[in-house]
């Protein structure tokens, strides 16, 4: 498939998804609207990871850390300090940005597996910290009755209005991703994702660009974290469990690293899978992970991955059955 065809398919899938999102509140059940709101908020986190991992090529498990900064930031600044929820959301995002800069400078000198392990430790630490820091976070009980976001007299406190808000935010983050991906910054990120030394030889300050990706990703993840807490008006350590990080990574890998449509599609698949598979009862997970395994084997770079590799399954086929590919000339 040529890059142009792939871009065209991606565009139409995005258009179709947008149509679904617009129509859902009119035709869908309350559960569908709820799930789509969750999809939008997780898609934002996946977009933030897509900047760090999909564009800049840095494996990060730390997105929940920044979600937690947003979530607890919003909850504490509003309930304890009585700040306006919008101000709390913005302040938390700034805090996450600052944290990313401070953490990122030493951490992003690590590469590959080492970076993955260091950020994994950060994710584990975040969950333990918010559970243990009882005086501040109220431990495993969490903080409830977080005040809703408001514009004038209008409060985003029902499912419909929050649905609109979360999708506006999600599409906004996708817009930021698209702008970055097509700018010089995006080009530099993709260069350093393949080879740090090549990037350096092209005058790219590798550490600075990595930290930039990390910081922008942190701010977006923090906003998503804030919105999620505003949505449920509750924050607790379970929202930042290590399983969430793995889910977010899975969403990106299913959707396709570096793509525009991938994050939303991945988030939607993982959010809706339990419902589609509900009839299978105890075999639910088994079937789901079987599907996942098959997907990874056939589409290793995700549904909308930039690089369409031959999956291992394809390599098991006899040569005349394999997908036709443009042969690489010597």
């Amino acid at each position, binding site marked *: 498939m040529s890059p142009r065809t792939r871009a065209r398919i991606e565009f139409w899938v995005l258009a179709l998804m947008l149509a679904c999102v617009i129509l859902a509140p009119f035709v869908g059940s309350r559960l569908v609207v709820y799930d789509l709101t969750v999809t939008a908020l997780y898609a934002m986190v996946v977009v933030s990871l897509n900047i760090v991992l999909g564009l800049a090529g840095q494996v990060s498990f730390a997105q929940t850390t920044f979600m937690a900064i947003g979530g607890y930031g919003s909850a504490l600044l509003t309930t304890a300090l009585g700040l306006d929820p919008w101000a709390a959301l913005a302040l938390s995002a700034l805090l996450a940005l600052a944290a990313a800069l401070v953490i990122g400078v030493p951490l992003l000198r690590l590469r590959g597996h080492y970076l993955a392990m260091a950020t994994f430790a950060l994710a584990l630490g975040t969950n333990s910290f918010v559970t243990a820091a009882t005086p501040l976070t109220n431990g495993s009980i969490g903080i409830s009755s977080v005040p809703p976001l408001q514009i004038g007299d209008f409060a985003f406190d029902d499912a419909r209005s929050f649905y609109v808000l979360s999708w506006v935010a999600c599409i906004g983050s996708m817009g930021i991703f698209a702008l970055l991906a097509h700018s010089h910054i995006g080009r530099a990120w993709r260069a350093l994702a393949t080879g740090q030394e090549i*990037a*350096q*030889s*092209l*005058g790219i300050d590798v550490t600075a660009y990595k930290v930039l990706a990390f910081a922008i990703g942190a701010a977006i993840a923090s906003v998503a974290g804030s919105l999620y807490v505003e949505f449920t008006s509750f924050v607790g350590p379970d929202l930042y469990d290590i399983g969430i990080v793995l889910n977010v990574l899975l969403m990106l890998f299913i959707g396709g690293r570096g793509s525009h449509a991938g994050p939303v599609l991945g988030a939607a698949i993982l959010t809706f899978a339990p419902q589609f598979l509900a009839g299978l009862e105890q075999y639910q997970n088994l079937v789901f992970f079987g599907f996942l395994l098959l997907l990874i084997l056939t589409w290793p770079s995700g549904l909308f991955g930039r*690089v369409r590799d031959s999956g291992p399954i394809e390599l098991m086929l006899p040569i005349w059955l394999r997908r036709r590919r443009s042969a*690489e000339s010597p």
Partner: protein
Amino acid sequence: MNAAALLRAERVAVRYGRVDALHPLSFAAAPGSLTLVLGPNGAGKTTLVKALAGAAVLRSGRVFLGDEDISWVPAHRRVARGIALVPEGRGRLPGLSVFDNLVLGWHAAGRGRRGERADALDEVLALFPVLKERLDQDCSTLSGGEMQMLAIARALLAKPQVLLLDEPSLGLAPLAVARVYEALAILIANGLSMVLVEQKAVPLRGARETTIVLQNGRAVFQEERRPTVEELASLYLGERAA
């Protein structure tokens, strides 16, 4: 030492862990000169260009560009100052189009020096017309020779005073090698300084040239002439063959 030297290395040495990859080496490259660095695998050729480009940390010694000591200028800043490296293995960046690659090079020149993008691109595409037909293609679909030309074009867009090339002929078909050398000959004739690393002797000639032969991290030959075939054989194979 030559006062008018553009790029000068003064007793430059590099160590990887406990291994001396490059023993103290000095040389000076005048403007518009060709410095040919020859040697077998593992002789320290790549280490030398990396030290010049800033990608390898110096254990001792200093590197000057003009009068300026750039020994501690990081690699990414040396590019804008005029030292461009075409890395070994051609620096393929899958997922980026040929155009994206060229724009990355153009950006590397720094705001003051790069000029109009269209003009800069036209200039290098005149040197490598093959690339013009491939601008929208993913660079991973290029052949080895085309990719090498792209890597050189990308480095040229950074407007270098000195171009460092690490084994540009490695793994290329003879015809592609000839094309690459044709382009390099034009660049030398136009007065670009070049440090060229190769394993074998090359047909390329400069008006002013120095040849350095490295063996186990030491310069065993450093003169303003080419070594003869017999000399080269004895330098590569050690004393026994002499």
